[in-house]
């Protein structure tokens, strides 16, 4: 294969990574933006989403599509409820103190991980994709007859991968609409801007926090449900999404939704492309270097606003 088709293949893989990463990172960013909580357990909510997806889809049995749709609905809701419960029983008790929430969410990370190991076990298990048609992709060349399309051998993707990209984009658009154009979004933004004054105007800030924490975890779980037909569910799978989400959120600017999406595209795409042409390790090295540069030259992130 020539360079062009290769690049296209790598970009598609990168776009899948970017789509899932954007969902996960937006969850982390929402929680930080509104609650000022650095949720170290975010990757475990991602992992729980994948594991629950396996449980739900294998419990339903039947056609793959039924199990997958059930998993896509049930797993994020369950994870969201669990996170909301964790907020009300743990984070609220320590008054959302910045340092102590980090310690508490580290504890939560290990509890979720070990409980999953004890119940689900150490195996990696796949979830069957609802559809998975191989799609050959065309490339073009300038031949004797001028512009021509042809189908190079090996240049293909699957319908499911395209679905992951589209689904993630749709969910991100829904989150944006929720934040910008609904009453819930207005309440969440008011809480973010001034929690005390929000209470003066009748906003039950504690419930907004529980909802936000649940929503953030639910988004991570949904991202995992989308990726689990490609990657398999495993109790240690939360590490990478957590690290990459933090990288994305720092580059994009903590609490900025557009910044998070742009940074996820940047990191996801470059991760995909560099991994194909060079090595995955180099991709991580470059991403980490980018974080370092952002922290030095633009600490508020690319799209963040400087704290007053």
């Amino acid at each position, binding site marked *: 294969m020539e360079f062009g088709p290769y690049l296209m293949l790598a970009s598609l893989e990168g776009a899948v990574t970017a789509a899932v990463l954007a969902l996960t990172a937006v969850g982390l960013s929402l929680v930080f933006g509104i609650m000022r909580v650095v949720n170290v357990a975010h990757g475990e909510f991602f992992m729980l989403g994948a594991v629950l997806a396996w449980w739900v889809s294998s419990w339903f049995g039947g056609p793959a599509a039924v199990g997958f749709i059930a998993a896509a609905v049930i797993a994020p809701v369950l994870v969201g409820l669990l996170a909301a419960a964790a907020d009300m029983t743990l984070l609220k008790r320590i008054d959302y103190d910045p340092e102590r929430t980090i310690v508490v969410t580290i504890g939560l990370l290990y509890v979720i991980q070990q409980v999953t190991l004890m119940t689900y076990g150490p195996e990696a298990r796949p979830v069957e994709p609802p559809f998975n048609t191989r799609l050959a992709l065309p490339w073009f060349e300038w031949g004797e007859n001028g512009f021509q399309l042809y189908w190079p051998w090996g240049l293909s993707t699957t319908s499911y991968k395209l679905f992951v990209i589209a689904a993630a984009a749709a969910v991100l658009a829904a989150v944006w609409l929720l934040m910008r154009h609904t*009453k819930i979004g*207005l*309440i969440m*933004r*008011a809480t973010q*801007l*001034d929690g*005390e*004054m*929000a*209470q*003066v*105007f*009748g*906003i*039950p*800030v504690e419930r907004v926090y529980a909802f936000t924490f649940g929503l953030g975890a639910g988004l991570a779980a949904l991202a995992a449900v989308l990726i689990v037909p490609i990657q398999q569910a495993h109790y240690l799978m939360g590490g990478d999404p957590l690290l990459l989400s933090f990288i994305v959120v720092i580059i994009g600017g903590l609490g900025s939704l557009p910044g998070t999406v742009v940074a996820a595209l940047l990191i996801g795409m470059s991760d995909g492309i560099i991994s194909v042409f060079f090595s995955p390790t180099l991709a991580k090295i470059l991403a980490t270097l980018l974080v370092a540069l952002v922290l030095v030259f633009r600490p508020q992130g690319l799209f963040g606003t400087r704290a007053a």
Partner: protein
Amino acid sequence: MLELSDVSTGYGEAQVLRDVSLDVRAGEIHCLLGRNGAGKTTTMKAITGLLPLWGGTIHLDGAEIGALPAHRVGQTGVGYIPQGRRLFGELTVAQNLEIGLMTRRSSAAVRERALDLFPRLRERMGQRAQTLSGGEQQMLATARALCTEPKVLLLDEPTEGLQPSMIAAIRDVIVQLRSEGTAILLVEQRIDAVLAVADRVTFLENGHARETWAAADLRGNHAVIDRYLGV
């Protein structure tokens, strides 16, 4: 209308208010005076529920509101215009007012009434609150509180840093609200401004409510004022 009995509270371990009792009647402007740190703002935060009470009770229209969580207090009819205005800066004027309306699920007619008092805000509805001038921000903070249809309005230094024409505009609105029967608790530094509009004055000192005077009796009685405010 609003009655504080033996209210004590503070921040963390530090007690600020000690057994403060005072009442604000419907259609009255009641002013809190005192030096910095006397507990004026703390009194307001105690009424809004932002500071939990250590002791004492707060009644509004006979109903106890001192034990309610902060988000329930606003729903009973306590409007708060805090020091420094504290608007939702990144939200638009319209959105700030909508949050006010949501507090007690008030109708759009309530917002229209608030906007009639501050017509200038109508031209700014789509503008972000943080881009308004200081005077417009104070108007918005007032209009936002009025959107909650308050029975009691708490105003913490509403004229701080404003130009004279704006101070007059704010004062006119306060006087109008009084004539409509709203109970108003006002914290204000400028004693001449206070004596011009207030009906009664309570002096706070070191977290104690020392004396309450009719404002009419204070005019020309500078000994009392100097005792609590002089340096």
